[in-house]
């Protein structure tokens, strides 16, 4: 499980605190060839950073550097950043209350929708749930996830030639 760190946690764990005194927004999580976790960030100043976590389980941070790889253009738009922050709040809420929801027969095995820190809908069909919650609450970032003890991994084994 990859870990998300708040800015304060980064300050505690990293020795390069000067660089970290900016608002960092995590934008992608990847693993490199040595199985290290790579977390990429966008700073409020639109500078790009990446953080390499050597041990997959330990939170020990091994390096922190400015990342020169291109980020998708849309991350840089401020509107997207607001949307991402809001979405991540709902996601964090889901993981906080997930175990309680799993014990509740009303929700177990169903898709749930989280908005403003609470469950605003549930359904066995994710598309029906999405239509209903967007109709009721507007088209805003709403976290929707199936309540299941098993975590699913999607496969996208579609390599393409680079022309």
């Amino acid at each position, binding site marked *: 499980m*990859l870990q998300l760190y708040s800015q304060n946690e980064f300050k505690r764990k990293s020795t390069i605190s000067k660089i970290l005194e900016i608002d960092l927004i995590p934008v*992608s*999580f*990847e*693993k490199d060839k040595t199985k290290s976790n790579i977390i990429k960030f966008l700073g409020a100043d639109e500078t790009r950073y990446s953080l390499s976590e050597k041990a997959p389980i330990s939170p020990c941070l091994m390096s922190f550097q400015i990342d020169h790889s291109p980020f*998708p*253009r*849309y991350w840089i*738009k401020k509107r*997207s950043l607001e*949307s*991402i922050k809001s*979405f991540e709040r709902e*996601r964090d809420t889901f993981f906080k209350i997930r175990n309680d929801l799993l014990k509740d027969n009303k929700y177990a095995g169903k898709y749930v929708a989280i908005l403003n820190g609470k469950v605003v809908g549930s359904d066995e069909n*994710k*598309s029906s749930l*999405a*239509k209903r919650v*967007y109709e009721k609450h507007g*088209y*805003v*970032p*709403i*976290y*929707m*996830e199936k309540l299941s003890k098993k*975590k*699913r*991994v*999607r*496969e*996208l*084994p*579609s*390599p*393409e*030639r680079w022309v």
Partner: protein
Amino acid sequence: MPHFDSTFDPPAATLRVNVHNPLRTKSKRSKGKLDTGADISVIPEDLVEELNLQPSGEEPVLGYDGSLSIKRKYFVYISFSGFSFFTDVLSSPRSNVLLGRDVLNQLRIFLSGKENIFTISDP
């Protein structure tokens, strides 16, 4: 009967696809490649901004080389050949749409690589 798209090497089954945001206020046309190896459909990440899509979830994704990454999901309408599906898709830095089995398994598809043709219908 549609022919395989020979701009791909080897040629691939592709369709003209319309991607709409859930409000159906914005849409974008794109090339969609039929990909029976993909568990979930994928849209080019440029569309996230162009259609003002709001994230609806995240998925761990395993690539062809075993690399694991976490990608955001977005609900969209995907329309092609008279069919329309409201489903969640991933975004990725690519130029065309991948139609994965989340969509393709709702249809009857016949691929003939030998003749470079395919048919698509709703059983």
